């Protein structure tokens, strides 16, 4: 089956710094989403981005489907950005998503 790898596995930032999180996948996908899981375990959908670029405030994401990767950019990081960021991919119009193992981000005040 399709493999989803995220890097880096762990990241520590000072508040105000920028960062780039990467998601590589091993096969063609039709769906790709980024999620944030806060330190209390709540998961929030950030972007649905099977291709192209989207921006939402300080966050933006780019997926280059032909090269099988997606990037999540966090600018001017805040302590509330701490948590785990997951990317999840789906194939062939399926509703079934395969999740990566995540990037654990800690933003220090």
């Amino acid at each position, binding site marked *: 089956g399709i493999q989803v790898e995220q890097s880096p596995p762990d990241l520590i930032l000072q508040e105000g710094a920028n960062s780039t999180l990467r998601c590589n996948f091993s096969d063609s996908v039709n*769906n790709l*989403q980024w999620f944030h899981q806060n330190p209390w*375990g709540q*998961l929030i959908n950030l972007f*649905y981005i099977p291709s192209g670029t989207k921006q939402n405030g300080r966050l933006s994401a780019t997926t280059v489907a032909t090269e099988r990767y997606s990037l999540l950019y966090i600018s001017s990081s805040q302590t509330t950005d701490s948590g785990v960021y997951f990317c999840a991919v789906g194939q062939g119009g399926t*509703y079934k998503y*395969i*999740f990566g193992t995540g990037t654990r981000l800690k933003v220090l005040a």
Partner: protein
Amino acid sequence: GAGVSQSPSNKVTEKGKDVELRCDPISGHTALYWYRQSLGQGLEFLIYFQGNSAPDKSGLPSDRFSAERTGGSVSTLTIQRTQQEDSAVYLCASKAGVSTDTQYFGPGTRLTVL
């Protein structure tokens, strides 16, 4: 309106006992997922319900796991004869329909099997 709710929030059980986990999706959402998240891991798909269609059970790890969704709303995940490896957080998510992509997650049920 209310988000996705799950109960109980925590469940501690003894090996061999049966457990039931409940998910109340957002009202009107026709699609519902169950996932399992083991410590420090990503989410593992378990089962998907869409409207009145037959559920996709392909992610259930063994026949000890089953799930149902009554009246197209509340869902119950049942684990029979629990094992220690079943310990995990069980997450439920709902979305408005098959053609939408945003999943709304509940807070999860943390299951500990002693």
